[in-house]
């Protein structure tokens, strides 16, 4: 078990380490000073994990709680979109549509949060469920297109992302669902959600750490159990590994694919709900950050394993929340994303490397055979 864990995680760990080192070198070269790079990296670490040095200097618990809140907020979003991509991968599908499914989920949560009057606890749960349904239905579209019309899901999900942007950001948010208060004022986005719909803050007002993070952790654990311990999960994986064999052994392949895409869309939709109910409290003018696309990187670096995805999301949530502080040292604002992108590149590169290695191994005995 331990050996399997190390073997599975090692390429990702090394890739992340290589990406961190490369960016460190890049910053040091640009700033012509290793000290700047070191300061910037330390600021990023303390900004992601909690400012331990200042806490030990007696700065109060807020310097720990605030970074935790920001890291957990980002990690929750990345984990859910990462899980969304990963579960589709398990069924053999490449879902690039998490961004669109997330936008649908976010607008559903913003609508339910603002329009309904429900008691606390019930209200956010209902909003999250609504977001999951909206994202899930949007995820079923590419599955139906694939199974009925043979449209490849990479193409259809990319296009559905743009449809989601047009439908939600360019029509609903500036049209029918526009904030009612906005008359002569410059308010962007939809109405604010009711106070009952807001996800409760776990550490009070000092930190934005909210209950959505627990939702993301629970989703990762449940998905792991579902994939590894249930019949449906097994069948889904079988469909992903060898659809023909799965069909031959009586697994309803189409059903499992529909199911996986609905689940994938639902998870991305829940990410949208977390953004709206946790920190924004409305659908902002646009979902600026591409969390849905980040999910692809998170899933791949996490080796498509739900717990690996969760760990990767925690790491990059912390790096990206803390990475803002690198700007204070003159480091360009894009470096946190650059680290993530390079790590993905190295993971993918490693797969190519493994593949070539396997090919050459298979070839060698064949070449040697005539001689023997």
């Amino acid at each position: 078990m331990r050996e399997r864990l190390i073997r599975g995680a090692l390429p990702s760990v090394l890739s992340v380490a290589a990406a961190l080192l490369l960016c460190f070198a890049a910053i040091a070269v640009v700033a012509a000073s290793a000290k700047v790079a070191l300061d910037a990296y330390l600021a990023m670490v303390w900004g992601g994990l909690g400012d331990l040095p200042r806490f030990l200097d007696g700065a109060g618990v807020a310097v720990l709680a605030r970074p935790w809140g920001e890291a957990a907020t980002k990690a929750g979003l990345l984990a859910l979109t990462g899980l969304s991509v990963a579960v589709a991968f398990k069924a053999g599908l490449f879902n690039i549509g998490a961004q669109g499914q997330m936008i649908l989920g976010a607008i559903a949560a913003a609508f339910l949060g603002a329009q309904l009057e429900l008691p606390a606890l019930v209200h956010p749960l209902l909003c999250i469920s609504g977001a999951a349904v909206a994202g899930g239905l949007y995820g079923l579209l590419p599955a139906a297109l694939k199974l009925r019309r043979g449209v490849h899901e990479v193409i259809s999900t990319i296009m559905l992302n743009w449809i989601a942007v047009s439908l939600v950001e360019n029509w609903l948010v500036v049209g029918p669902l526009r904030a009612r208060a906005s008359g002569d004022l410059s308010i962007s986005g939809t109405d604010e959600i009711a106070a009952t719909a807001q996800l409760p803050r776990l550490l009070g007002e000092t930190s934005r750490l909210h209950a959505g993070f627990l939702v993301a952790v629970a989703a990762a654990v449940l998905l792991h159990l579902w994939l590894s311990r249930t019949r449906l999960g097994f069948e889904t994986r079988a469909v992903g590994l060898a659809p023909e064999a799965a069909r031959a052994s009586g697994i309803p392949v189409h059903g499992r694919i529909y199911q996986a895409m609905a689940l994938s869309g639902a998870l991305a939709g829940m990410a949208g709900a977390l953004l709206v109910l946790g920190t924004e409290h409305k659908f902002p003018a646009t979902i600026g950050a591409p969390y849905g696309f980040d999910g692809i990187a998170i899933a791949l670096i996490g080796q498509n394993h739900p717990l690996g995805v969760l760990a990767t999301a925690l790491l990059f949530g912390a790096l990206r929340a803390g990475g803002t502080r690198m700007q204070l040292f003159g480091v360009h604002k894009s470096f946190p994303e650059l680290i993530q992108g390079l790590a993905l590149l190295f993971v993918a590169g490693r797969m190519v490397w493994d593949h070539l290695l396997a090919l050459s191994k298979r070839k060698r005995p064949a070449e040697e055979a005539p001689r023997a």
Partner: protein
Amino acid sequence: MKHYRLNILLAALAVAGCKKSEPAQEQPRPAEPKKHAVGLVTDVGGRGDHSFNDSALRGLELWAAGVAFEGSAYKPVTREEVRRSLAEDVARLEPPVEPLGVRPLVVQSKAQEDYEPNLQLLVDQGAALTVGVGFMLENAVEAVARRNPGSKFLLIDSPLLDAKGNPVKLPNVRTVVFREEEGSFLVGALAGLVSKKQVGFVGGMEIPLIKKFEAGFKAGVKSTAPKTAVLSSYTGTFDNVAAGKQIAQDMLAKGVDVIFHAAGSDGLGVIQAVKEARSSGKEVYGIGVDSDQHHLAPEAMLTSMIKRVDLAVYQAARDLVEGKLAATDVVLGLKEGGVGYALVRAEFPGKAEALAKIEELRRRIVAGEIDVPSNSAELEAFQAAP
């Protein structure tokens, strides 16, 4: 194979170990002379929009701190260089604009949800005053100001509003809004005088703030060229250069020969489109916004509608240093020098008369003889008047 992997793991651990041990050797930094730190959080447009955010950054970095951001670090600039960067009207101001010796702390936001933590970060870094650049930071400034009553804040482009849109006041927040319609009126009047066919307006997000630019601009065109048609279009964003370019190209193809943009970074695309049309021999002009955007296309820029975000930021920093930063709601128009138009460097027939006409309109607005419309209803009333 197993040994090979173990070796890599050990090597990685060793590297990680080295990195961790370095900070222990680091000497404590020598104490710097005490300076007021002034924080600034940009909106998602960020540094390099040559417009709104850059104007705020100029007020803080170049004017108040006397430094320039080059590559990845601040370089000090001389007082002489600061003075040379001032437009004529700002250079005349009393007391003069000169460096205050504050320390700038700038963070650029990458997404809407980062505004609040970014503001809080700068407060935690010791900023005595923190500037939120743009109405999109309104919620975040309000939340962080409530949480940190000991720190001061400056919010650009919006008053503080509660969830229902009613204005609220906090004792530690100054807000600044501009009468963009007045500056837009003047550039509109100039566009009316220069254009031979039609003029165009490209807005960013379709929100009341940008509608003020549109209303003032259209009224200005009407005041000098009542028969000239004004096409207007919105990109829906502030950070999509391609969308701005596309809309401007459409307008140019329809025969528009002067385009005014109020679209943040999207406007860079508008200017690019005008520049390309200009170099293919068409007699067209662009009008910039917020900062003097002449340098982006020296051949093709007629002027720019100036919005003195830089001055608002500088004055707040000066009030902070002098200990008199009051929590007021400031409105800056033509009269206060908060809006205006940039030096007209382009040459066209009848330039002297045109500029005289614009200056006369400016005097009449300052004197209150012209009431410039700031929304579409007022614009209709203005256009209906003889």
